[in-house]
């Protein structure tokens, strides 16, 4: 238990060093744009692939379970929309990003630590925590919502594609279902969660990378810890944020 509190304390102290004015704004912007590409745009492929197929699977499962003539087939579109927007895109895709982006951040910073590159930054008088972690956090918080909106759109498209291909639900019914009782607030809720999750992924992974000591083995361990703890914290915060935003 003491270890948990020590880690939380160290995390908070590191974040105090991260959230300071960057040494040079120009360098910060350059780095942030690089990270938008590295952490966000390079994840487009996996996000697109998973979203399309998950949307399709949700649509097929819903259609398969509707066996009462009293339930209209438009419910398939409604169910796909609600599950994709409320939970699948913001939470599941964030968990996938925690694996992909989190391990990348932790191993990159961890390797810099064990090869003394972070010491070199410190010796030059650079706030290494701010220089390395801050652009990643800001880039993730900016690009992840874009990825999630893209994921929502593809998830719904995947559902429509599956229904069209199998002929289970007509396009008219599917689109009608998508429009039933739509509330714009659900998008706000999903994107708010996404921004929180993006912060968790980048900051927790940055923390585990930054505190790495040793060699290649420890970098691997840091990477694993970053993914595990980011995922666990995302799941916990998902419950808290859902309670706060939807009730």
């Amino acid at each position, binding site marked *: 238990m003491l270890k948990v509190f020590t880690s939380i304390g160290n995390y908070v102290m590191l974040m105090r060093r991260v959230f300071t004015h960057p040494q040079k704004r120009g360098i910060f912007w350059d780095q942030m744009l690089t990270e938008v590409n590295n952490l966000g745009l390079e994840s487009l492929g996996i996000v697109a692939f998973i979203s399309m197929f998950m949307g399709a699977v949700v649509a097929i499962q819903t259609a398969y379970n509707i066996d009462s003539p009293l339930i209209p087939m438009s419910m398939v579109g409604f169910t796909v929309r609600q599950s994709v927007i409320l939970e699948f895109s913001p939470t599941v895709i964030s968990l996938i990003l925690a694996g992909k982006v989190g391990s990348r951040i932790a191993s990159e910073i961890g390797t810099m630590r064990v090869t003394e*590159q972070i*010491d*070199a930054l410190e010796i030059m008088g650079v706030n290494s925590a701010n220089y390395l972690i801050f652009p990643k956090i800001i880039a993730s918080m900016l690009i992840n919502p874009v990825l999630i909106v893209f994921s929502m759109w593809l998830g719904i498209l995947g559902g429509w594609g599956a229904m069209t291909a199998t002929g289970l639900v007509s396009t008219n019914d599917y689109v009608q279902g998508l429009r039933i009782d739509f509330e714009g607030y659900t998008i706000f809720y999903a994107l708010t969660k996404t921004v929180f999750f993006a912060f968790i992924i980048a900051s927790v992974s940055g923390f585990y990378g930054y505190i790495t000591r040793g060699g290649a083995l420890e970098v691997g361990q840091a990477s694993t810890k970053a993914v595990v703890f980011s995922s666990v914290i995302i799941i916990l915060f998902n419950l808290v944020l859902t309670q706060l935003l939807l009730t």
Partner: protein
Amino acid sequence: MIEARNIDKTFGEHHVLKNVSCNFDKGKTNLIIGQSGSGKTVLMKCLVGLFEVDQGTVMYNNRNFTRMNFEQRKTLRREIGMLFQGGALFDSMNVEQNVMFPLNMFTNQLLEEKRERVNFVLNRVNLENVNRLMPSELSGGMRKRVAIARAIAMNPQYLFCDEPNSGLDPQTSGVIDHLIQEITLEYNITTIVNTHDMNSVLSIGDSVAFIYKGELWWQGDKETILDTENPELNEFVFGTELTSRLKK
């Protein structure tokens, strides 16, 4: 001048540095020598603040480094250049970007001025036409020289070199040693070199501090080190086949 006064450092129950006091003079190549695990790297990291000392003080020209806060240290560190054992070049940057990094961070020079300075320091370490190469494309000796170029790009007052010859052949080691000594004299800076290479000691050791089991065991220079009666130092100095044969 850098002064280390009564430095103590422990890691858990391992007492690594025991009451170490020594001075490192300006315009000289000051060597810290000792066996692997004797505590010389820890001492160097205490001097630059990468490790916090448990007791004692580190003074940079009468400025108490150990009492400085984070911001004050950041400012002082702009006067420090350091060459790490593996070079510690930034993997994601090419040679030019590595050397230009401190100039980008701390100066408002135009790109052309920075390029000029980069080319000057790269020339100074005898490297040409390597600006676009990545660190992974360089040999061990070239990486060390790029790291020296980066360390001197900002005209430091203090230069720290942690085992600059590790992993290098004797000839390249000699080149690096002489480069360090030339830079020290040329810019009149305080240079501290960690090494266990006796060739380095005999060629550039203006001042030599021998650390043995975490204690300062002997201080002298390259002229006096061969005549010492200190048994532990003798064992270190004449520990290799070559030096023991020469002694005979």
